[in-house]
């Protein structure tokens, strides 16, 4: 097993969080001292731009470009929203990161805020991550006492503070625009841009929504430079490491920091300990529940944004869910669509009506009431998902559509046998 450089997890301990002193000993808060008040905010953005850092929350949008989309003459105050909602099945990397090294995230937030002159950040945390919320609140207070946060940070003239915002718990809150509504205490329906949040976000002020993992990379990029960051990736054109959360049918499920561009087979076979004895890899969802099934044919694919796009898939959040030969993929997809149908906010018709319809058809197939004509019908229905306001519905149909593309035989077997062939 190769050992790869640990950047975000360099201070990770087995059973406790890294302290502020441990973080400082590893070079923590140095970038904040060197940049805030001493270099122009545009220089922070320029460094991040040179590193090629892409957002780690799923969409992979270039981080610097997002900050630059805040208008130069945009109103004040400006807000940073830190997305740690992480409610997509299979995704748990943000929780591990908060529990590993919270001050790395805090420093990243302050530097991001400095880059586009924000004065306040909200960290949005889901109910089942209450311990993460408590850790952050405790460590934020320590950072405040050290002068890394609050009014006039390290006498730089820059003021910035961070609040933990607790969610009431709904998947849709992770969607950028719904997230803003949630923080403002409105019903969290997504809204269709424009205006984009970076122009008119929280209370109509410029607002940047960044993922926690994205922000944790910022201090390292500022300290070590863009070229160093690019060299961390194994793919040409890739940049940085990535937190891969592996779950499902593997011996050692967990979260691993590995280079972007590492082969899927290495992540599953080496780091997650491979599949249990007697099991054989059938498929995985490589980037969370809203990506497509990836088959054995691409088991050696390089895990990066462009390399996965080249095989018709998405890196998403790099939450790899592994399914073996004995797992029924109709059953798995039925479970996934059930999740999305339940979590749809119900605001727009394609999502509200479409997902339960597909769920019912899949339910019938799984439980022996399937008919041949359901297959083309589900295929057609999937196409309508693109008419919805936000990405929930197209994401929801990704596993369904790819089930029919790669595992049509397995679906048909359910219909022919009038039962699930995986059940006795």
């Amino acid at each position, binding site marked *: 097993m190769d050992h790869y450089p640990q950047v975000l997890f360099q201070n990770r301990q087995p059973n406790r969080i890294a302290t502020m002193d441990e973080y400082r000993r590893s070079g923590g808060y140095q970038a904040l001292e060197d940049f805030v008040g001493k270099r122009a905010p545009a220089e922070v953005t320029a460094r991040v731009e040179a590193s090629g850092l892409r957002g780690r929350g799923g969409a992979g949008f270039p981080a610097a470009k997002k900050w630059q989309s805040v208008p130069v003459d945009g109103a004040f105050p400006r807000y940073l929203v830190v997305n740690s909602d*992480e*409610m*997509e*099945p*299979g*995704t*748990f990397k943000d*929780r591990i990161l908060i529990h590993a090294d919270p001050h790395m995230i805090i420093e990243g937030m302050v530097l991001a805020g400095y880059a586009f002159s924000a004065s*306040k950040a909200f960290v949005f945390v*889901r*109910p*089942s*991550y*209450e*311990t993460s919320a408590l850790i952050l609140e405790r460590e934020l207070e320590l950072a405040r006492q050290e002068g890394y946060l609050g009014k006039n940070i390290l006498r730089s003239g820059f003021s910035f503070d961070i609040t933990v*915002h*607790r*969610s*009431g*718990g*709904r*998947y849709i809150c992770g969607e950028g625009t719904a997230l803003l509504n*949630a*923080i*403002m*205490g*409105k*019903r*969290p329906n997504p809204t269709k841009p424009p205006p984009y949040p970076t122009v008119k976000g*929280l*209370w109509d002020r410029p607002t940047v929504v960044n993922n926690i993992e994205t922000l944790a990379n910022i201090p390292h990029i500022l300290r070590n430079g863009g070229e160093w960051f690019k060299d961390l990736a194994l793919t040409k054109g890739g940049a940085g490491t990535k937190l891969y*959360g*592996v*779950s*499902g*049918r593997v011996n050692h*499920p*967990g*979260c691993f920091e590995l280079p972007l561009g590492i082969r899927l087979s290495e992540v599953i076979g080496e780091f997650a300990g491979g599949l249990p004895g007697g099991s054989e890899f059938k498929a995985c969802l490589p980037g969370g*529940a809203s990506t497509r099934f990836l088959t054995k044919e691409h088991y050696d694919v390089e895990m990066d944004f462009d390399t996965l796009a080249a095989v018709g898939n998405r890196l998403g959040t790099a*939450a790899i*869910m592994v*399914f073996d030969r004995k*797992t029924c993929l109709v*059953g*798995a997809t039925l*479970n*996934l669509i059930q*999740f999305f149908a*339940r*979590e749809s*906010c119900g605001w727009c018709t394609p999502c509200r009506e479409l997902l339960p319809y597909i769920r019912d058809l899949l339910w019938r197939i799984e439980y022996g009431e399937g008919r041949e004509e359901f297959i083309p019908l589900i295929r057609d229905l999937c196409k309508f998902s693109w008419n919805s306001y936000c990405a929930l519905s197209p994401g929801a149909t990704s596993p369904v559509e790819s089930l029919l593309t790669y595992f049509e035989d397995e679906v048909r077997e359910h219909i022919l046998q009038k039962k699930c062939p995986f059940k006795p």
Partner: protein
Amino acid sequence: MLPDDLKRLLSERISKAEDPREQAVDVMFEFQNHYGYMSDQAMKEASSLLGMTTLELEELATFYDHIYREQVGKYVIQVCDSVICWMHDHISVIDHIRYRLNIDLGETTADGLFTLLPVCCIGYCDRAPAMTVNRRVFGRLTPEKIDRILTRLKDHAEYPETE
């Protein structure tokens, strides 16, 4: 009615927020801690504290998984039923709790201690099958582990006062 000191604390938090509504979920969590759930009375009090209409607050209360508009037990057990826990036989977890507590999904035990609900992925896929009890997570569940958790909660519980 909410105790005065708690009411003062909440008012203070609300006044410090960018906008009162920003505190809506936090305030409802505090009311739930006090009343056990968001009763109609709690909805009225909370909305007036937040400067919202009860209808506006209702839009939020009915939207979120962790806000309860009906009476729930002192401990709300939410078992994850999403895909990774499904692979790890979450049904057996639910069945075991149903058997032990003699309630079905969506029901509360007669002593008012436990409510059993399904919940979507709680982000503990590396420790499946998993559940939360009042926002505290328990993973890698086995029948023995579930029994230990239930016994501990029963033994240390203060029974809710009857009204």
